């Protein structure tokens, strides 16, 4: 979170605790100047407190600083004398007798821009003077001493107490529960689901029909619909294990990684440009994207998957290819959005670390780590010290470097050359841009020298050569040689100069981090402000998980150790990471997570609907050596996955949100599957993987001033390869709730907004796909064995099957036939070209727009 000054300064400053000093009230200032006895002065002081101070405290301060209301901003409470004495995280709030030494007075004076209370607006000057007087009087306070600052205090950020939160507990493996409908479950997951349903007297929905199950399985595993042959083959397959075979075939498909890799890319905030303030192109980000897709296809165990993304540049390798693959994976740390211009370099380092920790926290641990940047986490057991223990690992890592771009030296994402001579090629390329102005000037000078030579201006040439020696070939100055030869020499030299001034092609390189030269611990930044360093904390991990100190070699950042810790079930966060991942897999397959707040398993997240099931799935994941495919396979082969989405009045009354899974959740296709399915129906989808789809763009990915850059979307590739330009997403992504690539998104929003309707009804890409589908239907797939055209009713069935993978009812068939006939008549009457194709196009378009296409049953 962004530093929020007012609320955090108290929390984050560490100031030595001043022993309260009792000073004599200033006789001149004291309200009862004539009072001399202690008792009297005390009474007067008490009155003063009651009249001038207490009302203000209660009106202006208790809302954030009250033990009764359990509000302890910055650890400070002001509703008891003990409260201000003990003070907050910065120490005592008051030094009785010494207003200038009192933090509270400092705060209400509003003189320190980082310490201003109350945060909304300053107290009236008169009130401030009252407080100053009160402190000079020794801060008399009539309130009970009895309220103990610490008693019953429940500090949410306490890492030890935090271990009781369900997500941090060890995995629990109870025996399978007893169920009445013992014949229903196919897998252990089913037994947990059924037991929970039965506990509420509910029953699972009947199995979905085979067509529905087929469509669901295709989309959820590979993001594509089955084609007509695949539907037919599955419907024909009577073998007991037909579905199992199908699932295995889909898990083996190279399209699997394109679907499931994209789920990870949502978490990794993958993008092809920086976004935020300066939207510079990430020309090489696609290598990371394709690495993720390949990793899912290869079922790279999740622990290794994380290790390479966090520390791939530090790992040993046996071949250059392996080295480059691992390094490319670590692009995960580099592709975040960053404020690039105008900010302080130190600030940027802290912002980058914050962005990385926020991503790691949410994506891997389901924790909002970023909240602890400015203050101890207000809800979860993450103290600020733990945040900076992790931050030290990130600030010991370079992800940025100085590079020349657009004629300036800039701080940009770090790039490293790939291949055996990658470093040399990269260095040569960068050197060119550093020197390009000189090189171009020199080429011009070379031309000028040639002109002088050709025009016989010997004297001027000599003078010129003295100034611009490098632009002139030595031999061309040699007057003893024939002129022709001298000209030839200079021409040759000029050619070299021109070649040197021509931009070289970009060598293969990738976004790769490295450890800094001197890795070290990070200082807590007070109130999250980069320029207010506090105490240093040793690099390490979250103490809520384990007290064991991190063993990080002095010369390294600690990223390897962090990656190991994340999946270490014994001593690290392995159980938590397994829960987070298992929950995500369940979410993608079943439509909702067991914990629906998939990026937040903290105290502000939701509790699991089926805690034992979640632990069972997490355990399976660990037992299978973190095989994501094995977990997916197990869930997809369950009976729970195969339920129909049928409505049930009784169940709906008990559980309207279907948390207990009495039926399958209907879900939207999402933009990628929506587009890919249209292109698949049209027969225009190119199923091959793609490299960069942004290489044609200039260095700024979106337009500013004269720059007219615009990403293209007309590639016939699968949607996962389309350009993900932050702040300029392809329209279909933007409209249909693609993940905002600025931050981890485990749960894409599912909105229904008018722009979606407008897109489906009017976008040319939809109409183009409809037309291609119509042509295919009319030209090829609607011929019978003899090559004769099938009757329109058969064609309508083919169309329905091709787009929706189901058969029309009689009503639907008749409605479509009538529509097509009438449309054709209308278009013919209007003199339209190809009225038949057009009429079928409009009908195909209608099916693309229909809810059966857009929603998975």
């Amino acid at each position, binding site marked *: 979170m*962004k530093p*929020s000054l007012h609320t955090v300064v108290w929390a984050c400053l560490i100031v030595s605790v001043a022993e309260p000093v009792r000073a004599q009230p200033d006789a001149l200032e004291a309200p009862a100047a004539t009072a001399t006895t202690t008792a009297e002065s005390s009474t007067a002081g008490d009155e003063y407190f009651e009249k001038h101070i207490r009302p203000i405290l209660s009106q202006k301060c208790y809302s954030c600083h009250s033990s009764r209301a359990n509000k302890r901003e910055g650890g400070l409470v002001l509703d008891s004398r003990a409260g201000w004495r003990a003070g907050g995280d910065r120490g005592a709030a008051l030094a009785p007798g010494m207003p200038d030494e009192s933090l509270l007075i400092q705060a209400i004076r509003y003189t320190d821009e980082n310490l201003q209370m109350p945060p*909304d607006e300053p107290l009236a000057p008169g009130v401030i003077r009252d407080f100053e007087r009160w402190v000079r009087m020794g801060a008399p306070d009539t309130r009970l001493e009895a309220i103990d600052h610490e008693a019953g205090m429940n500090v949410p950020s306490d890492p030890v107490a935090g271990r009781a939160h369900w997500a941090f507990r060890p995995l629990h493996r109870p025996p399978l529960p007893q169920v009445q409908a013992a014949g229903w479950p196919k897998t252990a997951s089913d037994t947990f689901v059924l037991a929970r349903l039965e506990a509420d007297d509910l029953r699972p929905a009947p199995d979905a029909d085979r067509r529905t199950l087929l469509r669901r399985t295709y989309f959820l595993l590979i993001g594509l619909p089955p084609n007509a042959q695949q539907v037919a083959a599955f419907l024909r397959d009577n073998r007991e294990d037909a579905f199992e075979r199908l699932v295995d075939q889909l898990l083996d498909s190279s399209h699997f990684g394109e679907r499931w890799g994209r789920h990870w890319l949502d978490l990794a905030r993958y993008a092809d440009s920086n976004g*935020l*303030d*300066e*939207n510079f192109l990430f020309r090489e980000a696609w290598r990371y994207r394709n690495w993720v897709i390949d990793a899912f296809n290869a079922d790279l165990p999740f622990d290794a998957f994380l290790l390479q993304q966090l520390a791939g540049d530090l790992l040993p390798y046996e071949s250059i290819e392996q080295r480059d693959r691992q390094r490319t994976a670590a692009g995960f740390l580099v592709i975040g959005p960053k*404020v690039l*211009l*105008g900010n302080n370099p130190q600030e940027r380092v802290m912002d980058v670390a914050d962005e990385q920790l926020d991503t790691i926290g949410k994506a891997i641990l389901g924790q*909002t780590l970023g*909240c602890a940047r400015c203050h101890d986490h*207000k809800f979860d057991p993450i103290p600020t010290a733990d945040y900076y223990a992790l931050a030290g690992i990130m600030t010991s890592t370079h992800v940025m470097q100085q590079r020349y771009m657009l004629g300036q030296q800039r701080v940009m994402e770090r790039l490293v050359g790939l291949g055996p001579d990658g470093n040399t090629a990269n260095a040569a390329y960068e050197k060119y841009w550093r020197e390009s102005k000189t090189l171009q000037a020199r080429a011009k000078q070379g031309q000028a020298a040639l002109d002088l030579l050709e025009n016989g201006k010997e004297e001027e040439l000599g003078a010129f050569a003295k100034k611009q020696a490098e632009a002139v070939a030595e031999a061309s100055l040699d007057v003893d040689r024939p002129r022709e030869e001298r000209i030839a020499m200079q021409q040759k030299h000029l050619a070299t100069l021109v070649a040197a001034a021509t931009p070289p092609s970009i060598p293969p390189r990738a976004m790769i981090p490295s450890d800094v030269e001197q890795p070290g611990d990070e200082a807590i930044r007070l109130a999250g402000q980069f320029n207010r360093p506090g105490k240093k904390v040793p690099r390490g991990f979250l103490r809520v998980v384990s007290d064991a100190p991190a063993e990080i070699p002095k010369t390294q950042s600690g990223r390897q150790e962090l990656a190991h810790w994340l999946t270490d079930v014994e001593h690290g966060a392995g159980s938590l990471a397994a829960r987070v991942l298992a929950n995500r897999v369940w979410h993608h397959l079943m439509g909702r997570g067991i914990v629906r707040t998939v*990026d*937040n398993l*903290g105290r*502000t997240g*939701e*509790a699991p609907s089926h805690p034992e099931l979640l632990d069972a799935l997490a355990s399976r994941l660990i037992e299978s050596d973190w095989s994501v495919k094995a977990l997916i396979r197990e869930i997809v082969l369950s009976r729970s996955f195969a339920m129909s*989405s*049928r409505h049930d*009045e009784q169940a709906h009354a008990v559980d309207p949100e279907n948390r207990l899974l009495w039926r399958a959740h*209907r879900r*939207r296709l999402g933009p990628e599957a929506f587009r890919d399915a249209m292109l698949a129906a049209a027969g225009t989808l190119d199923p091959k993987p793609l490299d960069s789809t942004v290489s044609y763009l200039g260095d700024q990915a*979106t*337009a*500013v001033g004269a720059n*007219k850059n615009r990403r293209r979307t007309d590639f016939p590739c699968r949607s996962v390869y389309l350009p993900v330009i932050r*702040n*300029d997403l392809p*329209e279909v992504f*933007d409209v249909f*709730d693609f993940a*905002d690539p*600025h*931050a981890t998104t485990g*749960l894409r929003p*599912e*909105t*229904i907004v*008018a*722009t979606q*309707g*407008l*897109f489906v*009804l*009017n*976008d*040319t890409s939809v109409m183009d796909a409809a037309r291609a589908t119509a042509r295919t239907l009319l030209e090829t797939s609607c011929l019978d064995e003899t090559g004769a055209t099938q009757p329109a009713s058969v064609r309508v069935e083919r169309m329905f099957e091709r787009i929706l993978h189901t058969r029309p*009812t009689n*009503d*639907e068939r008749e*409605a*479509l036939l009538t*529509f097509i006939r009438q449309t054709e008549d209308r278009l013919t009457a209007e003199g339209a070209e190809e009225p038949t194709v057009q009429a079928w196009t*409009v*009908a195909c378009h*209608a099916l693309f727009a*229909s*809810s059966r296409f857009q929603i998975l049953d």
Partner: protein
Amino acid sequence: MRCHQFYKTLTRRDVLRTSAAGFAQVALAGMLGQQAGAEDTLAPNAAGPTQWAHFPTRAKRVIFLFMWGGPSHVDLFDPKPTLNAEAGKPLAGSSVGSDAKQLGTLLGSPFKFSQHGDSGVWMSELFPQLARHADQMCVIRSMHTEGNAHGEALLRLHTGQANLVRPSVGAWVSYGLGRENENLPAFITISPPRGHGGVQNYGSAFLPAAHQGTAIGSAEIPIAESVVSNLGNRRLSPALQRTQLDLIQSLNRRHLQDATTDKQIEGLISNYELAYRMQSTMPQVMDLASETQATKDLYGIDAKPTDNFGRQCLLARKFAESGVRYIQVSTDYTWDHHQKVQEGSVAESAKVDRPIAGLLEDLRRRGLLEDTLVVWGAEFGRTPMVENGDGRNHHPKAFTMWMAGGGVQGGLTHGSTDEFGYAPAENPVHMHDLHATILYALGLDHKRLTYRHAGRDFRLTDVYGNVVRDVFA
């Protein structure tokens, strides 16, 4: 989509307000909030105050005139005799402090300033038309913000933050006030910048997507050539499209029948109708042909150099009249005068002076000015010091914005800068304060207009912002 008034969202809010069960439920409500777009979009609409109406409503809508690049306040609204007197000398003075040495020398303003209207608001000669409305304007001379580069400053102006993606001001307004006209979006941005944060500057971030600004064209495209994406079908006649939609809907209703009940299918069905209505309403509103020649002349349409901005401003009035809550009009990236600030200011002022004056006049004549808050400004101002011989650099430390209409006290000058226009001297107004003040004019309390996301409540002003009550009558 008036928000939070009907059963579904009310239930969600009720959970927030009344739950004694603590955070689990609150967070759940926040999570489900991500999926509440459907209800928000589809709820019946009304113009009345929503549950967010915290204060008396001064304005019902906002028109924000954005001068992309950063106009020079000392050449337009903030006269500085001392700056002129000391031109060529290094900047010095109490508010400059230790920076003075590296800041460079002062560049005087060649423009003549005078007082206008009964109230005597100061303006330079570059806004002769606007000057006639001086008594309607409240000029805030003490604006300040962060961000030395355009990108960061634009994001702060439009969303309050730069290093995290946050909802834009217009999205918050849409969320807080809902839709007045069910067939139009609540937030429209005319010719928005594509760079420097681009769509983030009118995005909804974690607010439901329905609150995102609807863009008409983009800054580099003349407005006359701009369209709203997919607002109409280029291949099907309206009659054919209607029969197609009827077919789609009959298929959908059959699907819904099979499902018995399903929010998503129901949502899809209503949404097609909404889209269809929008695509007939928007072009009607956007059609300038129905405007009289006199009105067009008022805005400088069909005349150089005012045509483009004139059209943008007239569109803004038409949207305001049709019930759009937040309308932004942006210039192209033309106010960034690192060189030739004098020529640049002359040229750019000439493009916008008559259109803006025309807008104020038109709104006034139609009785709209009293409940339309017009705000003029940019991401930052420009330095009193010289750059490149005859230009000025970016200057977030102090600059001028002005407001008119919407309950604002006309003829007022609020705040001041030091003798050079380098730093605010009296009543500084931070960008967060401006945001709080805009919401206040709309009857919204910036501290109470919140949205729960990722486990906590967010607001436009984060933990900052003070309403500048003095600017209101």
